[in-house]
C-alpha cells in the first residue's frame, strides 16, 4: 500500500513538473558564505607584533596557527619584514565573525596573554579585553608609581592571582598599562579591585570585597 502511494505521488510530481511550467517552485537557497557575502572578496586583518613578543610568538606559533587555520578556517601568516601577523578569510570560512575573533586572539597574545587564555576568546563570544593605564586612575609619579605597581601585583604576584582566580579573568600588568581579559561583569569587578589597589587600599580590604563579590557572582551561576 505504501509503495503504491509513493509511486502515485512520484508520478503526480512528474506530471505536475511536466504539465505546468508556469507554476514556479519556491527557490531554496543555501546560506551565504562570508566569501559570497563580500562578493567573493577576501578580507584581511593585520596585527602588529611588538618587539618583546617576537620571541614568544616564534615559540608559540604552532599553537596559534593550528586553531586559527583548522577550526576557524582563516589563513594566517607572519609577515616578517613588516613584523605583522596577517589574517585572511578563505572561501570556506564558516562565519563572518571568525576573522575578527582570530584577530582579537592574536592581538590578545601580542598584549601579553597566554595562548591558552587567549584561546578562550576564540571559543566564547562574550569575552573581551579591557585596557587602561595607571595614570587614568590616579596620577602617580616616581616611587608612588612603583609602589602602586608593586601593590597591584603583590608579593610573588599573589594579589594578581587572587583577583584572577576569584573573578575568572586574566590580568596583564605591563609597566603602567593594565590589560584584563574576561567577561564583561568580571572585567568590571577586576577593574574595581585594581583601581582600589592603585588608589591605595591595602590588599586585605580588596580581598574581603572580592570574597563578597565572587560569592554573589557564584550564586548567580
Amino acid at each position: 500500500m505504501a509503495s503504491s502511494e509513493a509511486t502515485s505521488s512520484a508520478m503526480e510530481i512528474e506530471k505536475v513538473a511536466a504539465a505546468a511550467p508556469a507554476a514556479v517552485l519556491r527557490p531554496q537557497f543555501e546560506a551565504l558564505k562570508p566569501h559570497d557575502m563580500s562578493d567573493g572578496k577576501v578580507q584581511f586583518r593585520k596585527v602588529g607584533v611588538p618587539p618583546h613578543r617576537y620571541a614568544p610568538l616564534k615559540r608559540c606559533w604552532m599553537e596559534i596557527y593550528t586553531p586559527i587555520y583548522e577550526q576557524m578556517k582563516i589563513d594566517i601568516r607572519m609577515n616578517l619584514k613588516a613584523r605583522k601577523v596577517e589574517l585572511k578569510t578563505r572561501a570556506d570560512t564558516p562565519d563572518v565573525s571568525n576573522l575578527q575573533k582570530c584577530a582579537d586572539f592574536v592581538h590578545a597574545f601580542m598584549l601579553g596573554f597566554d595562548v591558552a587564555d587567549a584561546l578562550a576568546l576564540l571559543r566564547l563570544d562574550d569575552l573581551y579585553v579591557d585596557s587602561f593605564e595607571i595614570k587614568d586612575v590616579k596620577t602617580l609619579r616616581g616611587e608612588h608609581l612603583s609602589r602602586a605597581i608593586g601593590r597591584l601585583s603583590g608579593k610573588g604576584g599573589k594579589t594578581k592571582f587572587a583577583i584572577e582566580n576569584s573573578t575568572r579573568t586574566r590580568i596583564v600588568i605591563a609597566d603602567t598599562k593594565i590589560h584584563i581579559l574576561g567577561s564583561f561583569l568580571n572585567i568590571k569587578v577586576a577593574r574595581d579591585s585594581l583601581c582600589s589597589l592603585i588608589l591605595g587600599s591595602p590588599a586585605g580590604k580588596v580581598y574581603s570585597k572580592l570574597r563578597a563579590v565572587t560569592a554573589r557572582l557564584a550564586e548567580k551561576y
Partner: protein
Amino acid sequence: MAATPVTTAAPAEEEAARQGEEALERLMSADAPLYLSPSPELAKDARTASRYLFSSLVPFCPKPPLDSLLADDGFDAEQIWCQIDLLSRPLLSVLRRELNRLEREPPAPVPGSGLDVGVAGEAAEKERVMEDGEGDEEDGDESEGDEEEEEEEAEEDEDEGDEEEKEDEEGEAKGNQVEDKFLKIKELEEYLEMEEEKEYGRPERKGNKHEEEDEDDDDEEDAADAEEEDDLDLGDFDGDGDEETGTAENARYEDFFGGIKKKGLNKNGIVGKRKCSSNGIDFVDGLESTDMDIEENDDKGQKILSTHEKELKKLHSKIEQMEKANLEPKSWTMQGEVTAAKRPKNSALEVDLDFEHNVRPAPVITEEVTASLEDIIKKRIIEGHFDDVQRAPILPSKSPKDHKELDENKSKKSLAEIYEEEYAQKSGLAPAPLTVSDTFKNEASLLFKKLCSKLDALSHFHFAPKPVIEDMSIQVNVPALAMEEIAPVAVSDAAMLAPEEIFQGKGDIKEEAELTKAERKRRRGNKKRKFKAEMAKTTAKKAGQNVIPGSTNEKPRS
C-alpha cells in the same frame, strides 16, 4: 397674805382650810400656759394650797415633825420640799403597814362604793394635776417635779387602794354580819352575779368607759416609768388570769391576754396590781373587764373573731403586705446590678456580700508548711533534680556553606579550560567536580565502612562478605561481554583481557629498522592505496552535497 399661826382655834383652822381649798381651785382653774412663766399669784396660791394639804395630812402621821408647813415667801422650794418629805416618809410606812393588814384581812366589798371610787379618782386626779403645776412653777426643774409626781402618785395610788380596800371590807362585812329586811344574802348574791355577767359577758358599760379613758390618759403619762416593769409583771398578771379562768366560767382569752391594741390597758392593770397588791376579785375583774371592754369597742365587727377567722385575717394581711411589697420597687440588695450611685452611702458595708475571689488566698505559713518545703528541697538536692533553664539548641537552618577560599597561586587551568569545564558541567557531559567537603565525606564514609565490616566480622558468626568498594578504575579495551564474564576471584584484571584486546594487528610485527626494502615498499604502496581510496570517498561525498534536489544534477532515483 401673812401666814396664819397654826395654834389658833378651830374657826381659824377652818378659815385656813377654806383658803387652801380656794387656792387649790384657783390653781386648777388657771390656764396651763400661765404655769410656764413664773407669776407671784400662782406661787402664793400654791403655797397656801400646799400648807392646807400638809395640815390635812398631819393627823395621819404618827410623829409629825412639824405641825404646819412653813411655806412663807422667804422659804425656798427646796426647803418646802424637805418639809413635805419629812412628813411623808413615816406616813408612807404607816400606809404600807395598813395595806399589808388589809391584804391579810380583805374587807367585804360594798355595792354602793362604785360612786365613791369615781369621786375619789377624780379628786386624786385633781390633786395630781395641781401638784404637777406646783412643781413646774416653783422650780422649772422637771426632775424635782417628777419626783414629786411620783411621790404624789404613790400616795394617790395608795389612797385609792386604801379606799378600795375599805370598800371591799365594807362589802364583806355586810354579807357576813348584816342580814335584815332590807338586805338579803341571796338577793345580794343574785345582784352580784348579774353584775358579773354584765362585766364578763356583755360589753355595755359606759360609766366605766369614761373612767377608763381618764385612767388611760394618766397611764400614758406614766407609760415611760412603768414600761420596764411590764415584763416582770406580765407573769404575775398571767398567773392571776389563770386563776380567773378557773373561777369565772364565761371568761375568754381576750379577757386575760387582751388584744394587741391595748398595751396601755395591760400596763394600767399591771401598775394597779403592783401598787395595790390586792387580790380582790372585783378589783381584778374591774381591770380585766376594762381591758375587754376597750378591745371589744375597738373591734370593727360587733362580735369576737374565732381563731380560724383570726388566722385568715392574719393571712390576708400578710398577703396584702407581700403584694404591696412586690409592687413597690425592691431594695437595692434585691436588684440586679447596682452601682455605688444607686444605693445609699456606705450601705455595702452593712450587707454581707458574697463574691468570687479570683486570687487564691495567701497560704498561711505554719511550721508544717515550712517543714514540708524544706523536705522537698532536701530531696531535690539529693536527687540532683533542679529546675534549671536549659538553653534551647540552635537548629541549623541552612547547611553550612563551603566558602571558596581565595587562591593566591597562579591558576593551573587556563581561562579556556575553566570555561570548558563550566560548559561541560552545565551540559551534563562531565560530572560535577567533588568539592573539598565531598572528598572528606567520601573518605570518612569509606573508613567507617571498613570499620563496620571488621566489627561485624568480630561480633557475630554469620558470614558477611567484604564490602564492595566502588572504584572508578577504567578498564580499557574491555568489551561488554568480558565484564559479565564469570572468572575466578584470583584472576587479575590484566589476565582478563584477551591477547587480541591487548594487541590488534596481523602477522609478524617488525620494527622499521628490521624491514627489508621490499617490505618497506609494500607498506608504502598499501598506505597510498588506502589514502587514494579515502580521498575518492570524500570527493564523492562533497560532490553529492552540492547537488540540489530536483535540479539537473540530481541523479534520478531508480
